[in-house]
């Protein structure tokens, strides 16, 4: 992907002056971010810096306290919009996978498309099998989540999100709960997605991965964006002292 083209593409997500508090605690302070179509943005920063909260605001799993979030021209902070409709186009992958433990892998993937009447049962099944093939889990269609390893669960969770054919995928520390030897298989699936042009916002601690796939890195600390730029600008030429000290600790 050529970086210089991205700025010319339409804006997919437009966040302006976002504020989020948990009681007295201000977790996000006046955040403004633009994400363009097909862009891969990695959010990095220390724990408690607000990365995950920011991500969860983008599909309103957390309601913003101030500011606006516009996805595809729709202001999702507006209480009157149909948030379910918006969420159909925003996939989300969680740190702890959150596969539906009462359903087998196939039904985990087909549930939403069928219930939301986007596909017939048969179409959904076909698409699910294609997706499982793609993430290398075709033989696990009939298994239950409890029978899968962490890496397999997360690949299945990605397939479940993709079944809705979203325009944007949000990843909330997708590899943080995995055994080290399973991190690679999940990152590989994500790399392919990035190459195919999916718009992705990824909260991650995998710096090597961020450097490789991201078009832009955003470094957050204390609820602010401290610094943002291309992987080269952040990892090799960081300007802010806090960015440099964070990267020194994790690299």
């Amino acid at each position, binding site marked *: 992907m050529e970086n210089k083209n991205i700025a010319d593409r339409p804006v997919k997500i437009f966040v302006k002056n976002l504020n989020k508090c948990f009681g007295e605690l201000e977790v996000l302070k006046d955040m403004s971010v633009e994400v363009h179509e097909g862009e891969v943005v990695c959010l990095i920063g220390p724990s408690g810096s607000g990365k995950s909260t920011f991500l969860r605001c983008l599909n309103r*799993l957390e309601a913003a306290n101030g500011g606006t979030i516009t996805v595809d021209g729709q202001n999702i902070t507006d209480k009157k919009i149909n948030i379910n409709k918006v969420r*159909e186009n925003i996939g*989300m992958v969680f740190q*702890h996978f*959150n596969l*539906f433990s*009462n*359903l087998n892998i196939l039904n985990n993937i087909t*549930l939403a498309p069928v*219930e939301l009447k986007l596909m017939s049962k048969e179409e959904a099944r076909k698409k699910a099998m294609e997706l499982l093939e793609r993430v290398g889990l075709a033989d696990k269609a009939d298994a239950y989540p409890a029978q899968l390893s962490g890496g397999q669960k997360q690949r299945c969770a990605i397939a479940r999100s993709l079944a809705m054919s979203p325009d944007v995928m949000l990843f909330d520390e997708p590899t943080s709960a995995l055994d080290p030897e399973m991190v690679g298989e999940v990152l590989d699936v994500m790399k392919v997605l990035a190459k195919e042009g999916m718009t992705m916002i990824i909260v991650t601690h995998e710096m090597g991965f961020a450097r490789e796939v991201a078009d832009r890195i955003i470094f957050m600390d204390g609820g602010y964006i401290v610094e943002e730029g291309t992987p080269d600008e952040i990892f090799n030429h960081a300007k802010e002292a806090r960015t440099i000290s964070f990267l020194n600790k994790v690299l």
Partner: protein
Amino acid sequence: MEFLDVLTSSVNTFIPALGQTVRLAIVVLIVATVLGVIFGLFTVSNIKVLELISKIYIGIIRGTPLLVQTFIIYYGLAQSLRPLGFQWKDIGGPFTAGIVALSLNAGAYMAEIVRGGIEAVDVGQMEAARSLGLSYGKAMQKIILPQAFFTMLPAIINQFIITLKDTSLISIIGIRELTQNGKILTSNAVAKSMPIWLVVAFYYLVICTLLSQIAKIVERKVSHRGK
């Protein structure tokens, strides 16, 4: 043995009484389960009015004895609604009143069981369902309640058995179920008090054991998937 004598000689009155107990229990368990699910969902709904309604309902039921509740519903309600032309005997008499009282009572306990079951499901399950675009109701129906059901099952069965035995308290308003039948028999044969009450206990033991056995089979059938 006197117990066996009474058991065989009183079959003609105990069988209809047993039928009455079982009928009472079945209707009550169904109504109570429906009430329990409704008020359990109210409690976790995050809608203040609904939460308050179910809190008040559960609070009142748990804070007062079943016997007093039965009196309020059978005698109290009949008296205060009489000006409106209401009489229990128009809608099935004490049997209906007993069903109302017991269902309201068991429903409150079931609501607490349902709430506990729903709250025991990992919040991530709801978040994942909602983030796919499913509505709150659909997520509850397809993901949360089926999972909650597994954790609730032992408590539900326990409540079923308690409620089954609580039907004995309803004898007080004159339904001829097992306990009332025992009372009538002993009043005619005071000297046989012990064997008669042992027979009553025996019938309860049989149906409770039967219920737990059925419950065990159901539990085994539905829990094969594990967590």
